[in-house]
């Protein structure tokens, strides 16, 4: 494993340095039919789950096959995607915002071979490599964060909760039976690197214990002022601590009841870890949307205050999600998003229909906006 240099010389970092060149020009990457008809598309149709056709004013058509997959992706897997794109799509493909892969062909006769090829590929473990779906009034891929794969503050895993959820929701990935599309999102702690606060269903990792304090090391590895200022609720103060051996050290103290377990302090100071087997788990939110269609965009609401981490498949979580999806499928009107449905029937009926327990944790007590969520009306259902 000898180090092989590109030519970069750490002693002369500016020599031949190229910077600020930005991304590659998208024009280099468009498939020809896209480049030709850009800005001149007439309409589209979802032919079947995962398969779309877009028709241009020119009469040109582009057929798209959308496949799901893990956003965590090996080069081996990417190379396989390239192999398929070379074989069927003249070496072009694209990714969607929700981590699907789209293979495009410019005539209908190329569609079946492509679909068959994609559907036939499976991992050794048995799962599909390229399941076709994720369109229309169904459930598409879950956007998510890193979790235990690569993050220092997660309260749960991301890839695992997503895999467990998508297995449970797989039929709806490949179908379009729902009243409207349903977006599931996942963030592994409340910093929400992937903002999930406007999703039909959001899975959120959540700590419930304030940080431990590694007093012996804290002042050695942390800048105490940075740790103090990292706290959004001003719960951290500098303090002197006496260790077991009697030595006095500079450290911090935490006002536990003010802590909202965000882990910002741990980011600044490794001597303040907060992960905990029993403390950590899942919050479920529901009813958000980003589209302006029919109703305004809206925030998701907390509908399950806490579920424990149940590795490896989080059955309580997937059961709650499935109950929400089924109640929605049964109760909502055509075109009605999950949150619009909940508002129409009233959240009290939502909890009933989804068999979810309402607890005091779900009543807002954050800032004065909380007031807006309480009920200033005699209009409610018993």
């Amino acid at each position: 494993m000898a180090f092989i240099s590109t030519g970069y010389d750490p002693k002369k970092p500016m020599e031949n340095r190229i910077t600020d060149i930005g991304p590659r020009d998208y024009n280099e990457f468009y498939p020809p039919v896209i480049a030709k008809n850009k800005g001149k598309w007439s309409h589209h149709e979802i032919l079947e789950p995962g398969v779309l056709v877009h028709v241009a004013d020119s009469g040109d058509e582009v057929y798209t096959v959308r496949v799901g997959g893990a956003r965590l992706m090996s080069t081996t897997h990417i190379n396989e995607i390239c192999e398929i794109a070379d074989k069927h799509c003249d070496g072009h493909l694209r990714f969607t915002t929700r981590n699907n892969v789209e293979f495009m062909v410019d005539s209908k006769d190329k569609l079946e071979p492509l679909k068959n090829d994609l559907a036939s590929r499976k991992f050794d473990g048995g799962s599909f490599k390229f399941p076709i779906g994720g369109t229309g009034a169904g459930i598409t891929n879950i956007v998510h964060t890193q979790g235990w794969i690569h993050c220092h503050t997660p309260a749960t895993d991301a890839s695992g909760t997503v895999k467990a959820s998508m297995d449970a929701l797989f039929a709806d990935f490949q179908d379009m039976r729902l009243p409207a599309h349903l977006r599931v999102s996942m963030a592994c702690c409340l910093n929400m690197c992937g903002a999930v606060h406007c999703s039909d269903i959001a899975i959120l990792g959540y700590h419930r214990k304030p940080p431990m304090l590694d007093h012996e090391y804290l002042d050695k590895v942390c800048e105490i002022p940075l740790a103090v200022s990292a706290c959004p609720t001003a719960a951290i103060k500098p303090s002197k601590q006496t260790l077991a051996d009697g030595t006095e050290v500079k450290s911090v103290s935490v006002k536990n009841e003010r802590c909202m377990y965000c882990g910002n302090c741990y980011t600044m100071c490794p001597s303040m870890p907060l992960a905990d087997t029993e403390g950590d788990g899942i919050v479920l939110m529901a009813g958000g949307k980003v589209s302006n269609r029919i109703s305004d965009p809206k925030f998701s609401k907390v509908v399950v205050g806490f579920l424990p981490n149940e590795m490896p498949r989080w059955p309580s979580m997937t059961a709650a999600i499935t109950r929400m999806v089924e109640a929605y499928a049964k109760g909502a009107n055509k075109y009605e998003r999950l949150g619009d449905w909940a508002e129409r029937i009233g959240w009290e009926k939502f909890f009933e229909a989804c068999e979810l327990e309402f607890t005091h944790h779900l009543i807002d007590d954050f800032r004065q906006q909380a007031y807006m969520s309480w009920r200033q009306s005699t209009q409610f259902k018993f």
Partner: protein
Amino acid sequence: MAKHETPFLDQLESGPWPSFVSDLKQQAEVRAKNEKGVEFQIPQDCVDDLLGIVELSYKHGRTHWKHGGIVGVFGYGGGVIGRYCDQPQAFPGVEHFHTMRVNQPAGKYYTTDYLRKLTDLWDFRGSGVTNMHGATGDIILLGTTTPQLEEVFWTLTHDYNQDLGGSGSNLRTPADCLGQSRCEYACYDTNALVHFLTNEYQDELHRPAFPYKFKFKLDGCPNCCVASIARSDMSFIGTWKDDIRIDQDAVNKYVENDAAYPANAGAHKGGDWGPFDIEKEVIALCPTGCMKFENKKLAIDNANCTRCMHCINVMPKALKIGKETGCSILCGAKAPILDGAQMGSLLVPFIEVNPDNDYEAITEVIENIWDWWMEEGKNRERLGELIMRQGFQKLLEVTGIEAMPQHVQYPRTNPYIFWKEDEVTGGWERDVEEYRKHHQR
């Protein structure tokens, strides 16, 4: 033969959805075999160790990663995220396991040629594990060591004509929907604008000069497929000012349930919803009630249309967006932390999107906002929080935009108007002795 036992993760190989565990295992095996004879610059068994350490997290219910110190490439304040594991003896392959963010192309179109170059590089100098893509939009190269960072950057810039993305208190990598490249709803060329803005603001993207992170996201229409209204400090959402274009013949095809005219472009094909009913599915669901279908003719009172896209989405062959297109700009969206979530608030109802003058109308708004935020924003204060702290009126002031009722969902419900002294006749300085002539103590 796997390096570590992974009984928990193994259970995530079953089920239909693509298993990230299966993929990591295949990757570990490919690296172990190394049929291509790659001269791996980081440990060959790093993916085995990645599986091992994630398995340990599944056992403990806790992560085993520590935050990295400051690592990066020379002169850039972002684009690299340091990462170390807390069990280096057991999993030496992932002791150092940094992330690099690579700026994705507009619309996320790729050629296989480009992707293969990237995988070659990442097999050679990294773990071969990626995210396609990260939450902000970048290509994420997941797992390499500190000495490789400059090497990867060198190859990207010299050989691939490719730069890193943003992280830290920078402009984050702007992201867009595919826009006019393949969507008939797009009101402007999102790919062109996102590419322009990314290049125009390379300095802001790479060198931290902001109070905190700043995101641009570009949606071609109010359907907001890229969620700009929820996820970006400045959100550019396509819209139009004139009338929805109607093809009455096509409307009637929908009404007649012609098979070539499936409602909602076929999105409901899996449900048993009965025949399409224009009254129930379009007219009655229009949020403003501005539509009528009488005598086989659809009429839209465009002055009362709020361009919600529903009717167009339902009958894409019959209804088209207007021709006088541009975008709305909304400001301040962010996730809940620290001070509560915000969605973008409408600042500019309509602005032209004009490549011919380098989008000058748009860059003026951006730069006015940045000037204010850099001057007034506190450390780690997002734009939305600054707007909340200093008020929406202040945002109008710094951008030189007239207040109009479009800016609000409803006018203020409280009468606590803070007048400025120069707005009040006679000013605030008064002579109490003069007053006392008429009002005894």
